[in-house]
């Protein structure tokens, strides 16, 4: 039985819409996140900022003192805490998201990375009779 909690990551960075461009970029650089959820005072997501949003803002030479409200995306996708596996797979394949915020009663509960879904699918395949994984150290 799929439980979305197995995929959710709670220790994530998020910002509010007054966060300056430099701090937003810094958080994106020091974290392993590709997106930063933007939340209001009730911790409800009101937008997201992606690496692409910040890069695009910088490349077009716009105001470096801008706040997240200026460059965040207000049309964004979230997953509900009760979402099923099909919903999650759809979001990561058809809609091609890489990271999706998860909300519980409208409040940010964490997010899911595409890599977490892959790990989940591998583990499920292994527990369904696949071969045990062998630890490897090098690439080519």
């Amino acid at each position, binding site marked *: 039985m799929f439980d979305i909690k197995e995929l959710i990551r709670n220790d994530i960075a998020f910002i509010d819409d007054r966060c300056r461009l430099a701090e937003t*970029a810094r958080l994106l650089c020091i974290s392993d996140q590709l997106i930063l959820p933007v939340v209001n005072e009730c911790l409800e997501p009101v937008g997201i900022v992606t690496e692409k949003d910040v*890069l695009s803002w910088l490349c077009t030479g716009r105001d470096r003192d801008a706040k997240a409200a200026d460059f965040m995306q207000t049309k964004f996708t979230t997953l509900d805490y009760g979402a099923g596996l099909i919903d999650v797979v759809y979001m990561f394949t058809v809609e091609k998201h890489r990271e999706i915020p998860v909300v519980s009663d409208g409040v940010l509960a964490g997010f899911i990375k595409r890599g977490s879904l*892959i790990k989940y*699918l591998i583990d499920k395949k292994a527990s369904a009779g696949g071969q045990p994984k062998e630890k490897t150290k090098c*690439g*080519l």
Partner: protein
Amino acid sequence: MTQARSLVKMDALCLKPEMPIERAIELMQQNDVTSAPVLSDNYTVAGILTESDIIRMFIDPENSGKEGTTVKDFMTKDVITEQIDSDISKVSQCLLDHHFGQVPIVYNDKFVGIISRKDLLKFMMGPDG
């Protein structure tokens, strides 16, 4: 003018087309990367394996439980690359125009390394942000 060569990361994880897909996934997870270039024997970029490709593999019923599948069966083959002497603004535009997290950098068609959006972001913000 800053060229791609000043930002290119040369120790990126690379895969081979004949590598078993399970091993490729394991390496991507160990190295915490969302995609990896796939190099042919002469170091040209044969493709790129992304997390989307991997998820597609899992949900395709034809591949369920299939043995002996390799990276080349699932990789994205049409790869856009940038030259080592390309201006950083051109590399940035490439990453913005397409939905790529990183772009392979080549010299005389041979793979040199990658530049990611994060690398560009760090460069553009500078040491003082």
